[in-house]
């Protein structure tokens, strides 16, 4: 764990994502204060297309909404969906990976083929059709559907680790020390496995947010959940590009990119620490 402090990549990633999460958590208070209790998505609250000013640092959009408020609100929803769906996906991935690692043989082969299939097949159009055809879709349903499509990535990351951890001599030694299967699982394997779960989790979060944003940009999914993708969708359909209102699109994009990049930096940092061989060779 100490080594993490020495990884600039991990630290940078951690700082950025923490800032974003704090921002999202403080959103209700900021927006409540700035909009005086109005909802960020309330239409016609202000004049339309106001230039950035002290009062509206990013201006207003074509429906007279404060762009900054929309963004913070969107960030909150995007992160929420990402973390829920990512969490669910990680649980699925860990479960299936453990099952594969524990049972081995045909079951392992089958699970590998299953997760590879989901990775190989272009799953987004399927996701889009499902979201289109499911009638009532709320935050949780959306997360579940997203999770169903994003567990394969983390599973691919986690599975080889499970197999390798299981074969470590210290696990054998624990067995010789008369540890039960459960004790081995929780006391010997899990502590060393946690970092990999974290890596898998951030892969799943990235995947979920990417898929969700893509859905929302083209106008699919629950319209009452104004995530960042939805904000971009509104901007596109209100012709923000044509009239040169670039910030309305660029800033949500920047937020999204920050999420993805910071999660990846965390992963790369962890990877270098978990695989000291790579670090040794790079000498970084």
């Amino acid at each position, binding site marked *: 764990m100490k080594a993490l402090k*020495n990884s600039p990549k991990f630290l940078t990633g951690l700082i950025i994502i923490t800032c974003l999460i704090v921002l999202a958590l403080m959103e209700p208070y900021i927006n409540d204060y700035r909009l005086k209790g109005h909802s960020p998505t309330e239409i016609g609250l202000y004049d339309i297309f106001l230039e950035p000013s002290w009062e509206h640092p990013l201006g207003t959009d074509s429906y007279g909404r404060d762009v900054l408020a929309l963004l913070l609100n969107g960030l909150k929803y995007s992160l929420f969906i990402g973390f829920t769906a990512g969490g669910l996906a990680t649980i699925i991935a860990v479960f299936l990976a453990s099952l594969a690692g524990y049972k081995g043989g045909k079951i392992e082969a089958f699970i590998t083929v299953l997760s590879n299939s989901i990775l190989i097949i272009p799953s987004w159009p399927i996701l889009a059709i499902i979201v289109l055809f499911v009638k009532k879709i709320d935050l949780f349903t959306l997360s579940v559907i997203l999770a169903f499509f994003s567990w394969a990535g983390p599973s691919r990351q986690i599975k080889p680790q499970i197999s390798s951890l299981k074969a470590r001599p210290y696990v054998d030694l624990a067995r010789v020390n008369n540890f039960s299967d459960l004790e081995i699982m929780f006391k010997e394997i899990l502590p060393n496995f946690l970092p990999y779960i974290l890596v898998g989790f951030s892969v799943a979060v990235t995947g979920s947010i990417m898929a969700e944003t893509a859905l929302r940009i083209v106008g699919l999914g629950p319209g009452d959940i104004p995530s960042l993708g939805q904000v971009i969708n509104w901007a596109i359909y209100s012709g923000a590009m044509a009239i040169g209102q670039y910030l309305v699109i660029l800033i949500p994009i920047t937020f999204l990119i920050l999420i993805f990049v910071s999660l990846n930096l965390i992963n790369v940092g962890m990877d270098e620490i978990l695989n000291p061989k790579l670090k*040794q*060779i790079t*000498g970084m």
Partner: protein
Amino acid sequence: MKEPLIEIRDLRVYFRTIYGDARSTDGVSLKIFENEVFGIAGESGCGKSTLVEGVLRLMKPPGYIKSGEVIYKGKNLFELTEEEFNKIRWKEIAYIPQGSMNSLNPVLKVEEQMIDAILSHTDTSKEEAKQIALEALDSVGLPEDVINMYPHELSGGMRQRVCIAMSTCLKPKIIFGDEPVTALDVVMQKLNLQTIMHLKEKIGLTVVMVAHDMAWHAEVCDRMAIMYAGKVVETGPVEEIFLNPLHPYTEGLLNAVPSLKRKFAKSIPGIAPSPLNWPPGCRFHPRCYRKMNICENEEPELKLIDSERYVACHLYNGGNWK
């Protein structure tokens, strides 16, 4: 005095780490004469493999050559450009890697791997090169069809022989073997080592062999050097070193391993130091049973004791060691 074929002067090979430089090979000077078999012994981490990699300029970052010279035919190998050095490599100075699974490129046939070295150094045609390769394979006792095989189709011992054939096919002057026969079963080790020695006689090679197990040196070497903590602690003719080890470390090492003839073994107390932080003074002093006060502060130099023996130990300061 005899002129050495190759002379290593104060070679230092370091590795950059986040804790500072790891001084793996830390000031080694050796003279190797024509037509001899020279052994380098020492335990893991003493810098014997990095020494060879340093001489052949095979270091990869974060490893680097801190300082030193390797004089071959009056030229310092470290001052040559990459291209100039590439001309000498293999053609005159060849290398046999550890007998590991990975010493051959898994995606190329044996033929291609043997030929590309020949083609890089000579003006032969592909057919001639193949002929040379076939002869080399024959000289190590491998059948012809090996040339059309891929490394994964060969056993460990055969791969090792391919490496030996490859390194001798251009009839170099000197071969550096880095643990050339480990990772095989003993019978195969013996066979392959004898193959190398057979080729040595045939071609007139000089062989430098790194091995951790002293018994192999006893079987084939003429002279040898013992390394400890990045430095050479003793050199001399093999027979004399085995009969009358001077340095306490050499003595300990010889007594540490039991053999079939001798059911006796005695460990050297203490633990091997780290290249990040060698002990001050004589690097062996924390483990030495003949430690003196001077050993803690002053590093002994490698001194000529007898006509051919050098030792780095304060015990032999006055030359009255007998």
